């Protein structure tokens, strides 16, 4: 097909993309307006650049602290998942031990159960460990993932067997093979799982709402919810807060786009 005939495709895609992006445009524009400007009809298209909306977000709650909590939570969950899932996934994919398939299927059954079935006991476990309103309470239950294990196992199974057979014969033990031979090869899979986990963790709302009631220990998602509870309809401030809370993950996505797309394509092809 000659490129001359591609312009209708571009037109349709561009119009669609504009519709998809419009809400963000409106978010940014409102964040820069004063309250009076925001509540004017017809709308004001050139804002007066009210940076005080952003300052107001920092006044309304411990935003920086919550940002830090979110970073720590996301990093903790993601690194742990990458380690624990790939370690176990390698064993499930390549090592032989009694009960291997039974254990694997038992773990996978977690994927079939709606999350609500875990929540109440999870809350109690965290409570009895004295972890309510702490970062470990926020992080630890999210460090283990049946989905991640499944995904990494599938990935390891696509790697040719010869690779580690060779290292094995060289006398290397499985942990060593895993660490220095398989893990480097599994980079694409790890990156895909990592990006998916970062995304899920950064945006997670329900668990933080449940375990961390102290604003100082909340991540941004729960902090935003509190901001909305307080400044119910002060839209410029709400837009400024939501913009600052979601921007970091959008940046990560733009950089790691390929890995995220691969991860999602994987979930679609299993």
């Amino acid at each position: 097909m000659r490129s001359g005939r591609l312009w209708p495709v571009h037109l349709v895609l561009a119009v669609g993309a504009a519709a998809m992006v419009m809400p963000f445009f409106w978010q940014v524009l409102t964040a820069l307006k004063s309250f009076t400007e925001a509540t004017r009809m017809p709308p004001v298209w050139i804002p007066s650049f009210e940076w005080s909306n952003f300052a107001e977000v920092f006044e309304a709650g411990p935003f920086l602290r919550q940002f830090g909590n979110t970073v720590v939570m996301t990093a903790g969950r993601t690194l742990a998942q990458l380690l624990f899932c790939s370690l176990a996934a390698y064993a499930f994919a390549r090592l032989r031990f009694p009960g291997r398939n039974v254990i694997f299927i038992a773990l996978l059954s977690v994927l079939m159960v709606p999350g609500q079935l875990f929540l109440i006991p999870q809350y109690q476990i965290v409570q009895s460990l004295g972890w309510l309103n702490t970062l470990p309470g926020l992080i630890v239950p999210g460090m283990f993932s049946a989905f991640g294990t499944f995904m990494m196992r599938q990935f390891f199974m696509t790697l040719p067997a010869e690779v580690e057979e060779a290292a094995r014969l060289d006398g290397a033990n499985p942990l060593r093979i895993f660490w220095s031979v398989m893990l480097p090869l599994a980079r694409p899979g790890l990156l895909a799982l990592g990006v998916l986990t970062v995304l899920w963790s950064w945006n997670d709302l329900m668990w933080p709402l449940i375990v961390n009631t102290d604003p100082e220990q909340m991540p941004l998602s729960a902090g935003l919810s509190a901001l909305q509870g307080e400044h119910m309809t002060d839209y410029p401030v709400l837009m400024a807060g939501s913009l600052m809370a979601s921007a970091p993950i959008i940046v990560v996505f733009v950089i790691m786009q390929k890995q995220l797309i691969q991860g999602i394509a994987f979930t679609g092809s299993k």
Partner: protein
Amino acid sequence: MSALDRAVAVRAAARPSARRRLRDREWVWGYAMIAPLVLGLGVFYLWPVAQSVYYSFTEWTLFGDATWIGLDNYRQVLTDPANAKALRNTFLYGGLTLLGIPVSIAVAALLGTRGLKLVSFYRTLYFLPVVTMPAAVAMIWSWLYNGDYGLINYALSFAGIEGTSWIADPDTALYAVAVVGIWTQIGYNAVIFMAGLQSIPSHLYEAASIDGAGRVRQFFGITLPLLSPSVFFVSVLSVINGLQMFDLVYLLFRKGNPAREETQTVVSLFFSRAFEEGAKGYAAAMAVVLMLITLALTVFQFRMQKRWVHYA
């Protein structure tokens, strides 16, 4: 030398007895390597399922003591009209989001046009809503939907339509939130469809072209049937995601919103019962019933797929 090269090189010098020795102790390594995960999933996921089932037969006081009450919770869960309403809302919401699938297919098909430039640019834009924090999405849309100052009502005013307070009006709120749901899913689904499209062998299109089939006929004759596994997967996912609907509903419909009753989903109701009202036993029973519904639905969908999904 890459890890692969090195491994292959090592293999060339391998001796069979080394392999033997290793096999003997393999199970120890196996258990050791799965131990952290099994422990974590066991403590935080598998054991809680059993506990939840137990809790569903108990009643809790507000600040935490439990007594055995048999099937009472289930009796209440199954007869409470609020649950029936929430289930209806949940299914309606899940069903409405299915309407986004044709849009996603169209986007994927257009992005798959051969020779198209700027593909990753478009993909980024369509994908933005997927990665945006739901708490932020809720704020943005509650502002767009605002009855007095919302952009949507402003746009409608050009068509002479006087819009309502979309998310405070019991008649429109559920549809309004479904639109947000579709908006957040289009990009995600399009990615899955793009992967599906790529797996369709190009010689089929070439053959069809030779037979004189136009692009539209090619789409309906080849693309759509061969894409059906992806369509199936996405619809299962949409329905299951619909059943899990919480964040947007929690954030958009707070106490005192007149549309609250019309928009509560099973999970948002579970959340208020378990963590706002402290009725943990009752909520556990809700979770068990939800699991049975999810299971039944999944089985049903897999049965139905034989009728329309075409595996190449």
